[in-house]
């Protein structure tokens, strides 16, 4: 069960033992990590599960597919480290991943 660390905008840290195959969004929501809204329940149709990958993780996690990339455009403050958490599937290589949650999903 890879360990994923979520950092909130106001400086809190949540370490989660995620299940293989779960999305980063599901792992957060099921472990009561605040700040990930996931309005559409993981359908890649709302852009309210936006997270920033911590430095150095972009290559391991990989880039977004076209669908996610076009939905990321809907997010307010997008950077090259932006991802939609519902589109990242937990696998062994994500052990130790740190993601930062923006101050708002609105």
């Amino acid at each position, binding site marked *: 069960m890879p360990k994923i660390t979520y950092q909130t905008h106001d400086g809190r840290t949540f370490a989660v033992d995620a299940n293989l195959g779960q999305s980063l969004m599901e792992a957060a929501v099921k472990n009561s990590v605040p700040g990930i809204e996931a*309005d559409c*329940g993981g*359908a*890649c*149709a*709302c*852009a*309210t599960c936006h997270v920033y990958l911590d430095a150095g993780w972009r290559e391991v996690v990989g880039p977004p597919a076209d669908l996610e990339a076009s*939905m990321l455009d809907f997010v307010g403050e997008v950077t090259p480290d932006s991802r939609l958490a519902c589109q990242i599937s937990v696998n062994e290589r994500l052990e130790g991943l740190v993601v930062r949650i923006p101050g708002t999903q609105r």
Partner: protein
Amino acid sequence: MYGAHSTPDAVVPAHVPTHLVFDFNLNDDPRLRADLHDGLLALRQAAPGPIFFSPRNGGNWVVTGHQECHAIARNPQVFANNPITVRPELAQTPRIPVSIDPPDHAAYRRVLMEQLTPRALARLEPDIHDTLNDLIDRVIETGRCDFVPAVSEPLPVWVFMRMMGFPLERYKEFREWVGTLVQFLPPQVRQKTLDLVAEMSAPLIQERMADRRDDLISRLIDADIDGRKPTFDEVISYCLMLFVAGLDTVVNAMSFGVRHLAMDQQLQAQLREDPALIPDAIEELLRRYSFANPVRFVLQDHDAFGVPLRRGDVVTLLLSAADLDERAFPAPTRVELHRATPHLAFNAGPHRCVGLHLARMELRILYETWLRRMPTFRLDPDRPWRFHQGTVMGIESLPLVWDPPAR
């Protein structure tokens, strides 16, 4: 007025406890006749709880609590937008994507999201600035205006109609049509207006199928819905959606916001002095004066809120009241720029307003420009405002006065 056309009162269903029955008519409630949001506060205080049952308009649960509305909006498995499986007599021509439930809903919604990203909308900015400056030029020297016909109605409606490709010369007629769509009227009455809109849209779509233009109708024709193009009827359904959504929403957000600034000279001065506060003011004014009240249909029995919701029940999310819930927003009538809890003016869940970036952009340009160019303004003491109740509450007339700028 609209009350005369309301669906008749229903017999209260057997499963509704007597103590939860409370008279509230979304189209014309006596409590709201003097002031919408003062009336909503009074309603919250008088009602038996954050969820009660009103026999009006065919019978519906009314939800005035913030956490309850938030939870319901985020639970499409139980609370559907499409009544067809449980209340087929209430179904009308679908508006895409609001009438569609998950899982089909997502692919339809993505089409609109792609057209309404901040980046896609940025190209509209110069046009919005020009239109607004022109509207201000027409009134600034006179020292008075009715803000709704002068600014808040034409600005977002023209921007929207140009974006869509709708015929600008019919804008007054369209505003009348949308008026019938935002009341809690019987489905047959609303269906007549939807038919008019569909009839108007069909030739526009056909023209663009032959000859694409730089407008949203053209882009909808070529949209990708999970690997296929939309059918003609689906493009019509998108047009119906956008018609309702585009023509009576930002108008009201602007009107309520400017009305507040006219009454709150301190905030008006503060925003003039420090325009960097405007984005926070936009959100807090949307919260303070939320105006859209969507409806859901119960798909399966659900007792989570301590009230017996049963399959087939109609539920009104009174977001305009939920954003005044003191449990979520202490001192709810105070305009405070840094509240912690997000508002529900754009709703929540899979159907959360897909046009919110457009709304925010227009509101930002309005407040920045109006405050920069206009002298200190206030409500006209001789002409009161006029407003209406309904599923989308709105302002029809907002007379303002100011001292004309010295030449």
